[in-house]
């Protein structure tokens, strides 16, 4: 483990913590209002560790939806991680099996995006760096969940203190970090239109999977650059 890589990872994770923390606290607050105890909310943040799906899960617990349907919905909201783990694999082939297990356990949206960014700018995605990013997101996420569960009523409306814009802006910054990639404009454009249409006509949280699949399909259908003899696989 290189401690300078670990520290670089901590620095990478810092803006992520600041933008995600309000949502961890929001989750804790909503969890208690929906009948979870603070300990159950903490357990959920510690084991599921995927904010959007945690909130969807709570919403469904609150409506006494059948357990298998709750799990299926959580799976659907987290479907994008299948794409993440497939796309991340080439950057972490040097990890040991245990390190891979840890790496996939903490694979969140920002963790994925920052890892790909680091991998393609010529750095090795070392385990020390990855663990630095992972831990500085994971531990505060757990802490603010508990804080939110106890102080829940203080952040009843995140809009009043402007917290609602932080995460979208953070993701916006990440998206633009990929603007030099092949097919960036068509992919982002189709994903944007697809997700807005799905948001409008199907409803949240399906807009994420629908929009993402649309964008990824466009990239698969556009001409492939390097190999002239790209045979049709599908």
């Amino acid at each position, binding site marked *: 483990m290189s401690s300078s890589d670990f520290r670089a990872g901590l620095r990478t994770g810092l803006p992520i913590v600041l933008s995600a923390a309000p949502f961890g606290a929001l989750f804790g607050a909503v969890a208690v209002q929906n009948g979870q105890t603070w300990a159950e909310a903490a357990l959920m943040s510690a084991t599921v560790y995927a904010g959007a799906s945690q909130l969807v899960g709570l919403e469904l617990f609150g409506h006494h939806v059948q357990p298998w349907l709750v799990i299926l919905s959580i799976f659907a909201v*987290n479907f994008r991680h299948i794409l993440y783990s497939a796309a991340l694999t080439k950057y972490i082939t040097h990890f040991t099996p245990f390190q891979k297990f840890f790496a996939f356990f903490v694979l969140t949206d920002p963790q994925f995006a920052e890892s790909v960014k680091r991998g393609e700018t010529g750095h090795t995605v070392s385990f020390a760096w990855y663990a630095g990013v992972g831990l500085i997101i994971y531990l505060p996420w757990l802490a603010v969940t508990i804080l939110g569960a106890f102080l829940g009523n203080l952040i009843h409306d995140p809009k009043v203190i402007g917290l609602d814009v932080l*995460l979208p*802006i953070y993701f916006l910054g990440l998206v633009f970090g990929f603007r030099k990639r092949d097919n960036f404009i068509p992919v982002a454009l189709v994903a944007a239109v697809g997700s807005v249409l799905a948001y409008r006509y199907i409803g949240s949280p399906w807009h994420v999977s629908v929009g993402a699949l649309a964008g990824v399909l466009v990239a698969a259908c556009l001409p492939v650059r390097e190999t002239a003899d790209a045979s049709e696989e599908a």
Partner: protein
Amino acid sequence: MDTRFHLDMTLLIFAAAVATFATRIGGYVLITRMKKIPPRLDAALNAVPAAVLTTLVAPNFYAGGPEVKIAMAFALVVGLRFNVLTMLAAGWVVVMALRHGAGW
């Protein structure tokens, strides 16, 4: 079981955790079973960050009020020159100013 954990809820949480972990390792399991990655699949995987992250941004812009749209647009311009923390601060200041200063 003490009153901090209820059996039903705890089991449900663990099931949710397993379902989530399955998505997080699923792509790895699928991709390492292939001997060779077809170029079109590779192109599709390369598009994953832009495609997925865009879906986390666009609906917020679409559904947000005018103050959110202005703050996000301003943060984008700031982000072309400065780092993410500056972007976050810029967007936050704009949305707060419009909501509390301008009363939107």
